[in-house]
C-alpha cells in the first residue's frame, strides 16, 4: 500500500521535470554530418555530369528504387539519358553511394521529403542533379581514369600514363 502511494508520488514529481520532447518543426534536431538523407547527383569541377550510366547503383539498391537509361554523346562519353529515383521506396541505406565509381550519386542530410501526392516522390534527373561537386570537391573521374577519344585510346596521348591492367596481379 505504501509502495503504491510512493509510486503515485514519484509520478506526480515528474510534473516538475522538463519534457524530453524535441518540438521538431521549431526545434531542429542535431544531424550528424554523415547523415544519409535525400539522394542527389553531383557534377565534376568542370560542370559536367559525373554519372557515367554504369547501373551499379541500380543493382546495389536493395529496394530497387533507382532506374536509369545510359546513353553516349558524340565523343563516346557515357551519361544517363534519364535517371529516376522513387523516394517513396528509398530506405536511405547508402549502398548506391558506396557502389558509385564516380562519386556521382551522393546522400545529403535532407530528410524532409513529405508530399501530398505520392507520385511527387518520384524524382527525375533534373530534380536530382545539383550544380556543385557535393562531398568530393576537385574529383573528376576522367582525369583519374583517362579518356578514350576519337582516334586515341586510353594512355596514348602525350604525358598520359597507361591505364591500370585490371587483370594483372602486378601493381
Amino acid at each position: 500500500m505504501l509502495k503504491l502511494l510512493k509510486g503515485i508520488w514519484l509520478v506526480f514529481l515528474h510534473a516538475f521535470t522538463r519534457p524530453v520532447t524535441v518540438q521538431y518543426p521549431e526545434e531542429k534536431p542535431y544531424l550528424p554530418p554523415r547523415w544519409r538523407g535525400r539522394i542527389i547527383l553531383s557534377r565534376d569541377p568542370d560542370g559536367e555530369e559525373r554519372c557515367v550510366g554504369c547501373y551499379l547503383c541500380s543493382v546495389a539498391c536493395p529496394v530497387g528504387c533507382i532506374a536509369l537509361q545510359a546513353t553516349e554523346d558524340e565523343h563516346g562519353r557515357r551519361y544517363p539519358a534519364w535517371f529516376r529515383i522513387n523516394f517513396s521506396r528509398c530506405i536511405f541505406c547508402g549502398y548506391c553511394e558506396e557502389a558509385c565509381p564516380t562519386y556521382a550519386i551522393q546522400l545529403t542530410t535532407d530528410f524532409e521529403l513529405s508530399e501530398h501526392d505520392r507520385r511527387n516522390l518520384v524524382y527525375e534527373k533534373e530534380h536530382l542533379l545539383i550544380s556543385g561537386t557535393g562531398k568530393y570537391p576537385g574529383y573528376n573521374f576522367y582525369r583519374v581514369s583517362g579518356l578514350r577519344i576519337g582516334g586515341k585510346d586510353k594512355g596514348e596521348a602525350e604525358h598520359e600514363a597507361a591505364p591500370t591492367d585490371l587483370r594483372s596481379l602486378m601493381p
Partner: protein
Amino acid sequence: MNETASTLLIIAGVLVTLLTLSALLIWLERRLLGFWQERYGPNRVGPFGLLQVVADMIKIFMKEDWVPPFADKAVFVIAPAVIIVTILMSFAVVPFTPSIVVADLNVGLLFFLAMSSLSAYSVVLAGWASNNKYSLLGGLRASAQMLSYEVFMGLSLMGVVMLAGSFSLRDIVAAQQGVWFCIPQVLGFIIFLIAGLAETKRVPFDIPEAEAELVAGFHTEYSGMKFGMFFVGEYLGIILISAMITVLFFGGWQGPWLPPVVWFSIKTFLFICLFILLRAALPRLRFDQLMTFGWKVMLPLALVNLTVTGALVLVGHPPE
C-alpha cells in the same frame, strides 16, 4: 414564474458547463498525462492546444455512424444515451453553491446512488447489443464490477449520512460547517474514492474496456458520436465523482474569502487531477484481484467504518 425561469436558467447553465467541461477534460487529461510522462501532450491546435477539443469534435462528427448488421439495433443505439442521461441526472442533486442546485431532493444521496447504478446498464447493454465476444466480455466484467463496488460505495456513505443526519446533499454540506467529513470519515472517504474509481471504470479499475485484452471492451463496435457519447460519459462520470467527493467529504462550497462556486470548482478540479494522476501512475488490476479486493477488503472495511461511526454517534447523541 420567476422561480421557474431561474430553475430553467440553472438547468441550462449546469448542462452547458458540464458538457463543455467534459470535452475540455479530454484535453486536460492528455496534457496532464503528458507532463507526468515527461512529454507535452497536444499543444499544437490553438493556445496550449486548447482547440484540440474542437478538432476532435469535428473529426468525430465526420466519422461514419455505423451500426453493425449483427447488432441488436435498438439497444445498440440506446446504450450510449443511457450513460449520458443517468450521469447528467445525478448532477441534478449536486449542490454547487447554496443557491445553484437543480433539485434539492431530501433523498439526494440515494438518488445519486440509484442513478450511478443505472449507468451500469449502459455498459452492460452496449456489451450485449454489440453481439461481439469482446464486447460481451467487457459487459460481463462491467456488470460484475459495478455490482460488487456498488455495495460498499453505498455503505461507505452511510457514515456521512449518520453524522449529518440527512440524505439531502445541501444539509450534508451545511453539516460540515465546523470540520469537513474527510477527518472523522477518513476511512469512508478512501473507500468512496476507490469505489468511485471503479464506478467510472478508470485505471486501475478499467477492466471492462481493458484495451490490452478486450480490444476496447464494451464499446468495441461503436464508432462516431456513439463512441463519443461513451467518452463524454466517462469524463462526466469523473466530474460527478469528484463533485460528490467534494460535497460529501470536503465541505462542498465552504471555504474562506473566495465565493462558494470558486471553492467548489477548486476542490472538484483537484480531485479530477487526482483521478488523472492515478491513471498515470497505476497499472490495471486483474479481474480476480479486483473482485477479491472488493469483497474481501473493501466490503469488511466499509462495514467496520459503518459500525464504528454508528457506535460513536450513538455514544455522542443517545436517543431520547
